[in-house]
């Protein structure tokens, strides 16, 4: 294969593999090489907590052959870490010295966990930041001799890891600096039902406090010291304090970097034949137009697919994504948070409804004609329709009552 025509994709997770699949759909003959620094073949990253809980095996998480991913004629190089990119010569250099030319290249290197430097001892054995299948394997191994674990950070990823450990019968304490869990996804008052569900499930939660240091001995971690002077004895620590984009390999390449790689509406970077997608890329929020970065499988797939089409010669504008777009279930409580959800001290029209089983908050702009955000807890029926209304900025005047009462269905939107 002539390298001038070949597609090279740096990163073998959601954005990279979605792009590879999209290119393959458009161009049956093109050479596609995916370079992944991980030792495992591409897999569904959101499933790795199930390896920790023991509910799934690694082979059940393989990407190729599942869902829309055929893996057909896509060369995947594992343990292939790219260390430099030569945009003029159109080639990438790997850590082992190998070089690979490209016709078009996609940077989909994703992100890595952020380890706060103010916490001492994060390099102690038994301290994890669950990101890769390899992390999950080590965590599962350590869990065998763990009676108590401390989770630092109250985000979704850490909650999922916490539940995986709870399922194994491990006592789990969640230490959250914010006043409530999931503070990135909703206001504290919105999280009440979720908090109750977490309490019922047996998760111990300490809010408003942060870890100062992790204490270890010859067996690895043995305690976590908090800023209020408390010390919690434990055999495992899991850090979920957000992520940072993997952009170091682009130093000196001429690729423009902001908070992450800067991509235009057609997912292209500032150098010829270079594209970016996924966690590593800066994108824009459709309601406000503000630049944002997200770390979400669903967003990464959508942008990666878009990049794949652009690379294969089908110009496709990326419509951007909500900074917040999450659906999941923690304990027995399903919830969805999307769009503008932090409304404390903001001049917006807000409708709340709370019962013992369900809570919803619907956020409209100041003139009340557009839905800009929604938090649904307990009853998430038809959440996709709300997402559609927010994203398309539809005038919702005629269906506002149905939205506020959570009775909206697609029939209301039909021109009948």
């Amino acid at each position: 294969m002539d390298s001038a025509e070949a597609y090279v994709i740096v990163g073998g997770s959601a954005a990279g593999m979605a792009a590879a699949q999209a290119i393959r759909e458009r161009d049956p003959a093109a050479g596609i090489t995916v370079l992944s620094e991980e030792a495992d073949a591409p897999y569904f990253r959101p499933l790795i907590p199930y390896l920790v809980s023991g509910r799934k095996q690694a082979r059940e998480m393989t990407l190729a052959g599942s869902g829309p991913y055929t893996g057909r004629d896509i060369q995947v190089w594992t343990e292939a870490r790219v260390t430099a990119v030569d945009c003029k010569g159109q080639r990438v250099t790997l850590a082992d010295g190998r070089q690979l030319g490209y016709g078009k290249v996609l940077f989909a290197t994703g992100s890595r966990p952020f380890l706060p430097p103010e916490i001492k001892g994060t390099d102690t054995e038994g301290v994890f930041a669950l990101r890769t299948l390899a992390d999950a394997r080590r965590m599962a191994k350590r869990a065998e001799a763990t009676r108590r674990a401390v989770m630092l950070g109250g985000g979704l990823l850490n909650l999922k890891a916490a539940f995986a450990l709870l399922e194994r019968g491990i006592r789990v304490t969640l230490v959250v600096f914010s006043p409530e869990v999931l503070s990135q996804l909703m206001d504290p008052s919105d999280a009440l039902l979720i908090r109750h569900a977490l309490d019922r499930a047996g998760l111990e939660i300490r809010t408003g406090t942060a870890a100062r240091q992790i204490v270890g001995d010859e067996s690895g971690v043995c305690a976590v010291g908090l800023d209020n002077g408390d010390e919690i004895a434990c055999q495992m620590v899991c850090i979920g304090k957000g992520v940072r984009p993997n952009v170091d390999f682009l130093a000196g390449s001429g690729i423009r970097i902001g908070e992450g790689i800067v991509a235009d509406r057609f997912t292209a970077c500032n150098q010829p034949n270079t594209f970016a997608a996924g966690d590593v890329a800066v994108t824009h929020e459709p309601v406000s137009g503000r630049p944002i970065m997200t770390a979400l499988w669903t967003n990464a797939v959508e942008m990666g697919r878009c990049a794949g089409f652009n690379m294969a010669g089908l110009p496709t504008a990326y419509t951007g994504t909500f900074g917040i777009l999450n659906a999941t279930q923690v304990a027995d409580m399903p919830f969805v948070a999307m769009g503008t959800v932090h409304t404390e001290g903001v001049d917006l029209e807000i409708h709340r409804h709370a019962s013992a089983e369900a809570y919803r908050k619907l956020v409209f702009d100041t003139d009340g004609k557009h839905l800009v955000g929604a938090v649904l807890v307990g009853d998430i029926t038809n959440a996709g329709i709300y997402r559609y209304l927010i994203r398309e900025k539809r005038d919702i005047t005629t269906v506002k009552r149905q939205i506020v009462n959570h009775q909206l269905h697609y029939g209301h939107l039909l021109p009948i």
Partner: protein
Amino acid sequence: MTQPKEIFVLTDRCVGCRTCTIACAVAHSTSKTLFGAVAETPRPKSRIYVEWAAPAHKVPMVCRHCEDAPCMHACISGAIRRTDDGVVITDTDKCIGCWTCVMVCPYGMIGRDLERHKAYRCDRCPDRDIPACVAACPTGALVYQTVPAYAADVRRHASGEMVKGKGS
């Protein structure tokens, strides 16, 4: 691949009797009979919905098996795929009940089975020649046809109307 058939919905023919929803639930029950289905636990679930829109519209709705299905690409566990017949299906074994598909379906056509903690949706009745909802509809509001055949029917009907309009 031969042209697959789709379920077309004629909203002006629907009278809102919900026979389709019962037929769907029965077709997806263990016993496959109405009397058996009502006694089953968990209760068999319909994948087709009939909603009411003011002032007097009844709107049957069922998964469109979208061409670029948002649910399939959004799924974080690889549980949603398209069969060779063009039908988008949810693999219940792979589904982890994260409800991402529910969040992205712009039609609201994915149900949540709370007892099994799994998402469910129309599977176009793979073991039947005609989907149960279509077969059961007493007013012809649901039509199971290929796109070219359906379009030909519409053309034929329209041309008949045009000829009548000319009075010839």
